[in-house]
């Protein structure tokens, strides 16, 4: 079954997905290092361990489709094709960054490139997604939007209203809940489960699915179906990618709300290693080829770090620019 799915993906595409997952891992490991070294003023949320959810989902899109992200969004940006230099520069708060150093890790956006932005407000992207979907519909083109949010966002009032409107207006949006089991310290299992979250879809009146979010192929298959459905005018879907965040919630976290054993169990299900094993077992790649992809990703990130560190700070004279459009 897995083997059959592996073979539906060309070698070039598989290589690209591996590259994107490794680039995400490398970006975030570097982000963590830079932060520890005191080079970053601000906060960050790492998605290490969730790479298959971002890459598998976004791999189903055409280049001119859209995504809307959330605060844990580095992987989403990278999967959408972000320039790693500009991303790293934004993380460093530099003028060359995607948001000219104004937004930082939590607000990386590339509107021209179809990335409508991460969001500092949990659930903040969901109502926007309805409007984006409706706008795309009005424009009459065949583009779709993937709207990502966390299990925590699913508990907000914004989620409920957004689902209602999305179904009412039949917008071409795939809502993707990355259930990484916790909202900060609050365990999703205390108020819901991936099954129940997926079940919301039926209550609202749209197709729903739950995936093994650490299995790239599983994610990809479910999202592909929902994307095709949206593109064909079938309206929204809700998908729950069941995954796990390895690192603390943000820069500081004592992990008091979970056990080391739980973390290690999920690390056994490393989404990158799982996909790598599958494609090697299938004979699509040799281990050496994948080592090269991995190495290449880390080299790219090292270049991005140098680019970011050598980039200019924004000028204070420019500080009041950009509040209003002319």
């Amino acid at each position, binding site marked *: 079954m897995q083997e059959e799915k592996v073979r539906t993906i060309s070698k070039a595409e598989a290589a690209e997905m591996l590259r994107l997952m490794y680039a995400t891992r490398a970006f975030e490991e570097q982000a963590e290092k830079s932060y520890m070294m005191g080079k970053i003023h*601000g906060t960050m949320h790492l998605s290490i361990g969730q790479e298959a959810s971002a890459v598998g989902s976004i791999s189903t899109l055409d280049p001119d489709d859209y995504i809307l992200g959330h605060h844990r969004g580095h992987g989403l940006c990278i999967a959408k094709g972000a320039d790693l230099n500009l991303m790293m520069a934004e993380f460093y708060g530099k003028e060359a960054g995607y948001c000219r150093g104004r*937004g930082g890790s939590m607000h990386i956006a590339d509107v021209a490139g179809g990335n409508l932005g991460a969001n500092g*407000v949990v659930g903040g992207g969901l109502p926007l997604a309805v409007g984006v979907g409706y706008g795309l519909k009005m424009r009459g083109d065949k583009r779709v939007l993937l709207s990502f949010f966390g299990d*925590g966002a699913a508990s907000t*009032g914004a989620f409920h209203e957004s689902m209602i409107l999305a179904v009412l207006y039949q917008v071409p949006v795939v809502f993707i809940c990355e259930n990484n089991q916790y*909202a900060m310290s*609050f365990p999703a299992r205390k108020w819901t489960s991936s099954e129940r979250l997926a079940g919301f879809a039926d209550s609202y009146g749209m197709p729903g699915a739950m995936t093994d979010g650490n299995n790239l192929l599983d994610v990809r298959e479910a999202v592909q179906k929902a994307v095709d459905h949206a593109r064909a005018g079938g309206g929204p879907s809700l998908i729950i990618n069941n995954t796990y965040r390895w690192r603390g919630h943000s820069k500081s976290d004592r992990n008091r709300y979970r056990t080391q054993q739980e973390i290690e169990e999920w690390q056994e299900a490393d989404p990158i290693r799982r996909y790598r094993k599958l494609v090697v077992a299938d004979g699509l790649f040799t281990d050496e080829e994948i080592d090269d992809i991995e190495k290449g990703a880390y080299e790219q990130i090292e270049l991005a770090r140098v680019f970011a560190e050598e980039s200019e700070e924004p000028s204070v004279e420019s500080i*009041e620019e950009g509040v209003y459009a002319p």
Partner: protein
Amino acid sequence: MREITYLEAVREAMTQEMERDEKVFLIGEDVGQYGGAFGASFGMLEKFGPDRILDTPITELGLTGAATGAALVGMRPIAEIMFMDFLTLASEQLVNQAAKLRFMFGGRATVPMVLRTPAGSGTGAAEHHSQSLENWFAHIPGLKVVMPSTPYDAKGLLISSIRDNNAVVFVEHKLLYKTKGPVPEEPYAIPLGQADVKREGKDLTIVATSVMVSRALEAAKTLAEEGIDVEIVDPRTIRPLDAEPIIQSVIKTGRVLIVHEAVKMGGYGGELAATIAESRAFGYLDAPIVRLAGRDIPIPYNRTLELSAVPQVPDIIAKAREIVQGKV
């Protein structure tokens, strides 16, 4: 006297009030085992148990309403909203319900609750986690708005807020959490609506709130070396406002500089300026009333821009000099 941090003062006030009155409970995101995003309730779950330290999923509107409802039936909830920015989400229950229930019901209902929240910039948390929105709530009849600037004030004002029979928005400042100061161990209450003169002086009155009080005190040291003697008045609660000490100070010095972090347009400084202009202090003014406040922009991420977005010590010094030298 023993010194503790502002954060510890907040925790101590909550703890002592919860020990004193079993109707007091805490509700908020990650306030339990995690101890609150900034650690304000660290250890309180172990002390009071999950029935009085309520962890919520991400539900700002829901938890604020839950606090309001519980208050309506006689409990004394403390709700924590992780960042003041998310009061935008809690606002319906706070502004339309908590603030108005008593009046709407002809004075036959009481909503004794506190909504605690950290505000302000300086941590690199960017646009969605750095705002100072206190004036939104000062605008609402039925709410009280408290902004402590020291550990001592934090404890005494929080105790009063918890004992108060109204909905109180208690605005903490992230940058103040780690600051230390003398705080009595026993419980004490500082009345809401009582300003405090943080420094006496004769040349210029600075009215400052929250983190700007410590910046003004810092500025005052440099200004003193230049022979400019600054008086600093901290309103401590911006609603109700204790205007008299401010008016008296302005009558004494003849000059006033108002400093706050929130954006100047529509900020509390306008209210203060108008209060002074409408008062008997008007005739004593030797210079225009001046406001120094946040720039008219959201708070940016980059460190240098972030610092430049809100008043810093050198800005206060420069503005104070200009006023005293008759350059405004």
